[in-house]
């Protein structure tokens, strides 16, 4: 039986954990200060959180002692609230976390409140990226909720003196046989301040027994979204708030030489702020601020910079030498001998593939509201790294991290594009200077120019197979776009895959499955070329080279499922149409896409994607409808990068920084989408926000080849009409 000491429920073997927490700046009182009385179950962050630690610096802490991964609170009124450092960017984490907690506490998921991404309230979290919210956070909160349920059963047993084993929890109540006794969770926690700290070893409900998770629960705050009631960062207002605007040079990497702000200063209501190279204005309306910035005369100095037309040569020339080249270099597994493999091959393919820089284009541009009070800074901003941005702010503003609070309202998407948010720092600088809360919303043009991009890259592939289609050699070199999904998932005895960091002319960073998209495009295109070279059907060729290892079987399963749904091999495409398929794996999940395209080389939009079938497997499915939604969205987004999205730039200037010049997929571009979910209840749930995008571009390119006999090896395939 668990001893009760001073109102704290402590499992004896966990005693040292309470000690650890008592020593940190966080106390029980602080937890209850956030939540109010009731029962708190806090979960010690396990290896998962440690694995997520940012490599550089970064102060932990914030809403909770550093060891805590998440916690669940049951209030005196029975209300269930869970606290997590994740961010809602449209991936529906608010809903999926509520589902997990509801499952364990046996309450309707709509009654579970999820508090996310407020650094003063939630436990430290490295960020919402790498598709980790579902695999990591949901099981953590699930464990906390399961432990809370057990604690409620303990309390009920103690209160009623009933046999604990006869009690069960359902519908927010603990009841005995025939409804006696019966306590609401509120009855049990009323007037108490109970806290329990648990480790990772709490048993939870297995996926085959889920009742809430695993179902298509509608989006938690969907009603607020359709009524326009949800407040995004750009909708936040504060008393006395004014609007900020920052002066931008024409070219990237510019240094301020001289500035004349007299005319702007003379404008009524306008305050000009200067802080190093940052020149900004603050005014009572956004319009006045924007007009005032136009009155500033500035001279800038910019270095000569690489242009889009020289990009790929540059990436190759600077390989291994440049800085900031998208991560560490390295291999994706070398085995056998490339030389031997080439000798053994009857057919070879040597080809170079490229991918362009593309922009995230989140529909909500970067925005921030900054407010100072008593030397403390509060910033509302849409970011995928609330604690990282808090630390960035602390550094930039020269204050301690515990004086900075970052609050992330559910955000108008990110796709990996909102890890750093210069907007937050800019707003904070302006707000400090004028002594008022400042709202700063980047224009679309600023968003296109001053954020960061998905890396461009060049990939060289040499591959060979025997006449019967057995792969003999795979030699793969990626320059700049990253090392994820670098190694071939197919069975090939002689294999080398290397990532070569180089110098990127544009600022680059995270993007939905950035490197896996490039690597899968190159690999699956080359596989298609090789299939044609040996005269095998592209599906048969792939299946032939997948063996019995577990990942290869999972890849095979999605390929077969997608081909079946599509009707692969059952008939020829009509004139001008083509079919193509591709598959890949990333972040523990597996995807295959089959596309049908219609090609008209003379048209302004020469490639129309008619239909895409996606088969996807990410272990146990948490919410089938939201998963389908994520897959459909990823496919549509993937079509943009496959067909036309690209950032054009010349000597430090972005040439297409508007939605008029930078094309994104629209209603007309959306194909018929069919998804097949392979639900593997016996496997852990993996993330799903990214992987479904990776096979889209090669499936389309392969279909274009079937339609035309022409192999397009650059992403996007048709940036400005059919390539010359």
């Amino acid at each position: 039986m668990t001893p009760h000491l001073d109102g704290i429920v402590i499992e004896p073997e966990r005693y040292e954990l309470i000690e650890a927490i008592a020593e940190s700046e966080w106390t029980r009182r602080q937890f209850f200060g956030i939540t109010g009385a009731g029962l708190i179950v806090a979960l010690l962050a396990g290896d998962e959180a440690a694995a997520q630690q940012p490599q550089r610096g970064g102060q932990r802490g914030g809403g909770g002692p550093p060891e805590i991964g998440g916690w669940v609170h049951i209030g005196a009124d029975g209300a269930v609230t869970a606290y997590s450092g994740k961010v809602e960017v449209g991936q529906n984490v608010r809903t999926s976390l509520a589902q997990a907690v509801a499952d364990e506490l046996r309450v309707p998921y709509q009654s579970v409140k999820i508090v996310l991404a407020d650094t003063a309230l939630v436990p430290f979290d490295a960020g919402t990226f790498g598709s980790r919210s579902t695999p990591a956070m949901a099981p953590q909160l699930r464990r906390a909720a399961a432990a809370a349920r057990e604690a409620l059963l303990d309390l009920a047993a103690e209160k009623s003196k009933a046999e604990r084993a006869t009690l069960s929890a359902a519908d927010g109540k603990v009841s005995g046989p025939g409804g006696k006794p019966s306590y609401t969770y509120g009855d049990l926690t009323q007037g108490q301040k109970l806290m329990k700290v648990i480790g990772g070893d709490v048993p939870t409900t297995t996926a085959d027994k889920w009742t809430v998770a695993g179902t298509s629960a509608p989006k938690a705050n969907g009603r607020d979204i359709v009524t326009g009631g949800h407040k995004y960062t750009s909708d936040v207002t504060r008393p006395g708030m004014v609007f900020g605007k920052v002066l931008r040079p024409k070219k990237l990497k510019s240094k301020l030489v001289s500035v004349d702000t007299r005319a702007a200063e003379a404008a009524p209501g306008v305050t000009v702020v200067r802080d190093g190279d940052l020149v900004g204005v603050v005014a009572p309306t956004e319009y006045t601020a924007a007009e005032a910035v136009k009155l500033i005369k500035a001279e800038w100095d910019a270095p000569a910079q690489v242009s889009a037309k020289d990009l790929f040569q540059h990436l190759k020339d600077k390989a291994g030498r440049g800085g900031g080249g998208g991560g560490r270099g390295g291999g994706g597994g070398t085995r056998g001998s490339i030389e031997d493999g080439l000798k053994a091959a009857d057919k070879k393919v040597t080809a170079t593939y490229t991918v362009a820089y593309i922009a995230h284009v989140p529909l909500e541009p970067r925005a921030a509201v900054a407010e100072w009070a008593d030397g403390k800074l509060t910033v509302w901003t849409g970011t995928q790294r609330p604690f990282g941005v808090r630390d960035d702010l602390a550094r930039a503003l020269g204050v301690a991290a515990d004086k900075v609070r970052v609050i992330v309202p559910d955000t108008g998407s990110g796709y990996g594009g909102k890890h750093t948010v210069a907007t937050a720092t800019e707003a904070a600088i302006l707000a400090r200077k004028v002594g008022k809360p400042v709202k700063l919303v980047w224009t679309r043009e600023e968003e296109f120019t001053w954020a960061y991009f998905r890396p461009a890259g060049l990939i060289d592939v040499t591959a060979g197979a025997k006449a019967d289609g057995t792969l003999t050699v795979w030699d793969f070199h990626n320059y700049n776009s990253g090392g994820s999904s670098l190694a071939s998932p197919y069975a090939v005895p002689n294999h080398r895959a290397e990532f070569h960091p180089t110098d990127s002319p544009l600022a680059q960073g995270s993007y939905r499955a950035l490197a896996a998209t490039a690597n899968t495009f190159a690999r699956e295109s080359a596989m298609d070329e090789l299939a044609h070279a040996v005269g095998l059907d592209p599906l048969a060729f792939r299946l032939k080279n997948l063996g019995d290892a577990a990942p290869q079987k999972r890849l095979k399963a999605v390929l077969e499922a997608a081909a079946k749904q599509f009707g692969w091999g059952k008939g020829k495409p009509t004139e001008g149409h083509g079919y193509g398929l591709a598959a890949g794996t990333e972040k523990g999940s597996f995807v295959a896409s089959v596309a049908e395209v219609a090609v008209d080389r003379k048209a302004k939009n020469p490639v129309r994607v008619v239909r895409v079938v996606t088969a996807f497997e990410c272990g146990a499915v948490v919410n089938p409808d939201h998963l389908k939604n994520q897959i459909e969205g990823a496919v549509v987004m993937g079509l943009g990068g496959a067909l036309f999205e690209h950032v054009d730039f010349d000597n430090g200037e972005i040439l297409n920084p508007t939605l008029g010049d930078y094309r994104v997929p629209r209603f007309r571009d959306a194909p018929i989408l069919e998804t097949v979910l392979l639900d593997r209840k016996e496997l852990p749930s993996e993330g799903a926000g990214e992987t479904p995008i990776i096979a889209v571009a090669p499936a389309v390119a392969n279909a274009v080849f079937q339609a035309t006999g022409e192999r397009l090896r650059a992403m996007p395939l048709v940036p400005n009409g059919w390539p010359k």
Partner: protein
Amino acid sequence: MPNVKGLQVNGADRATDAHPDRSLLSVLRDDLGLTGAKYGCGEGRCGACTVLVDGRAIRSCQSRVETVAGKPIRTVEGLAAGEKLHPVQAALLDAGAMQCGYCTPGMVMSAVALLEQHPEPTRDDIVAAMNGNICRCGTYGRLVVAIEAAAKAMKGGAK
């Protein structure tokens, strides 16, 4: 040019004091607290800022506030009747036609304008009418399904 002193929004006269060159979008959002319409591009190409003026869908980021003074303006906030959602809102919710939801108010208003003018649109009509609205999360297929369902509901007198 004098400042604009008032707007007729969602059936009510709303006082303001706005520079005539300001966008309707900024006046709705920053002066009147109607933040449903969103800024997505400021160039008329994303539709996030869509509201109805005289029953027609317009891009409020592109309308100088002076040009709409005195005209009836409808925003997403004016659609639901108390707890009861407009059929378009209900249909989007039912179809799960959103992810981040930032495009949603603009989608709703464009669809309302379409269905009020064309109660029985074909799929192609819907695509053509909605093509100016971007959903970067890519929920187009679901939006089309939702708008078809809303058309049915509105015809059935569910308005």
